[in-house]
């Protein structure tokens, strides 16, 4: 496995090295036109209030997640995201006042250097590019279903280290995207990370709006487990429908998959419905061979199916409600969610 990973790192670097470099006059003109607007620092991010009733016990989930983007030069950018989350539960389970601490975490604080059109170097603390949920779909204002997938704790989180990544157009119909990374062990409070190395590669077919990819990660500490993942994302051009699925396998930790479909009523006759989206997700998780190796995973085989409604009030606000049912050998339970999410963008300089 180590050799295979080492070889893949090499092959990716060599392939990128062999890709022809060149610039046409029109590309140069387009760049000049696009570069007309000089980037400024911005404070972006999201906030969410999503009360959840899991097995009848309410949790007031409140999240504020600011994102700071600071362009240092034309090719260098600093970006960072913190998360402040309060999961307030009733003192006696189902009665009493709500209590709980606010958890603080630094999810990423990284420097990105855009080397050229094929390579971006990232150094610092970054989101682990294992499958796509962690990097692309995690923020509450983005995700269609508010609860985390059951397999989410496998191979995801934040890393401290180095990463090479990029998106390369192989031809007008295929785009390759890749990320190769190494993370060092850190036990510093709020900056924890695991020592591991991995890669993710995906092929995007823009005309079909279809992306497929895989992830591999090898842990270089403790049990030295291997993790494998794959994903698919499809958005047919003519129908406002999103299909996403991810699967993960780790012999020791467990395996599972989730599949989610979301349909937006953009073409409905009633304009009020244009902002509505129905979503359904089903997922399954099987425990691995080493019980308790990952404390964030379910301890028994679990299935869960959820359905919900999102309503986009405007570009920033989203109202949501969902219902789900969890099935385990120890019993079944309901999970209800209702709430609001908000996305904000604040320029930290003259925006014009």
């Amino acid at each position, binding site marked *: 496995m*180590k*050799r295979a990973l*080492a070889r893949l*790192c090499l092959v990716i*670097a060599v392939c990128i*090295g062999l890709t022809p470099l*060149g*610039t046409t*006059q029109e590309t*140069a*003109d*387009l760049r*000049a*036109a*696009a*570069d*007309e*607007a*000089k*980037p*400024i620092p*911005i404070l*972006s991010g999201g906030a969410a209030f999503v009360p959840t009733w899991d097995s009848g016990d309410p949790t007031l989930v409140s999240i504020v997640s600011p994102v700071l*983007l600071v362009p240092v030069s034309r090719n260098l950018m600093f*970006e960072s995201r913190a998360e402040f989350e309060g999961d307030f539960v009733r003192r006696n389970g189902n009665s009493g006042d709500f209590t709980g601490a606010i958890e603080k975490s630094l999810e990423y604080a990284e420097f990105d*250097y*855009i080397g*050229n*059109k*094929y*390579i*971006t*170097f*990232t150094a610092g603390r970054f989101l682990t590019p294992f499958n796509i949920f962690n*990097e*692309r*779909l995690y923020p509450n*204002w*983005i995700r269609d279903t508010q609860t985390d997938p059951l397999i989410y704790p496998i191979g995801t989180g934040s890393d401290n280290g180095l990463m090479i*990544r990029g*998106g390369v157009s192989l031809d007008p119909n295929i785009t390759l*995207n890749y*990320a*190769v990374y*190494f993370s060092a062990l850190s036990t510093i409070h709020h900056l924890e990370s695991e020592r591991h*190395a991995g890669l993710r590669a995906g092929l995007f077919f*823009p005309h079909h*709006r279809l*992306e497929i990819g895989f992830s591999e990660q090898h842990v*270089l500490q403790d049990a030295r487990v291997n993790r494998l993942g794959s994903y698919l*994302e499809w*958005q047919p051009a003519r129908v406002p429908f999103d299909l996403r699925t991810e699967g993960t396998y780790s012999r020791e930790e467990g395996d599972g998959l989730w599949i989610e479909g979301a349909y937006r009523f953009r073409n409905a006759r009633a304009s009020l419905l244009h902002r509505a989206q129905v979503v359904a997700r089903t997922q399954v998780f099987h425990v691995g061979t080493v019980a308790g190796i990952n404390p964030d995973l379910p301890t028994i085989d679990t299935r869960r199916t959820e359905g919900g409604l999102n309503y*986009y009030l405007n*570009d920033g606000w989203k109202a949501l409600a969902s219902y789900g049912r969890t099935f385990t050998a120890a019993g079944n339970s309901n999970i209800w969610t209702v709430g609001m999410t908000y996305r904000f*963008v604040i*320029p930290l*300089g*003259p*925006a*014009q």
Partner: protein
Amino acid sequence: MKILRAFIFALTIAADVAYAGSAADSPAPISQPATASTPELNLRWMMEGEKRYRTNCGRCHQPPHKFEPRVMATAVRHMRVRGMLTDEDMKYVLYYMTH
């Protein structure tokens, strides 16, 4: 250790390529103004930009409305890294979102 060595080796090769690529990508002498030189070219870039905006931005989230140009310039660079946009995608989307 082998993985670490391979990663450092790959990083070195990538740095070489990045350096070479930067030289190749350095702006050619610009004979055109900063916006498209002809209405036809402007229309073509806008159409291509809109297509790529819908194809790429909508993959993860509901496509946002246009922000101010300098805000958009930062956001698109962020999405190039996060969303793995290609260099060409970034330029077309930025042109579309700022014109």
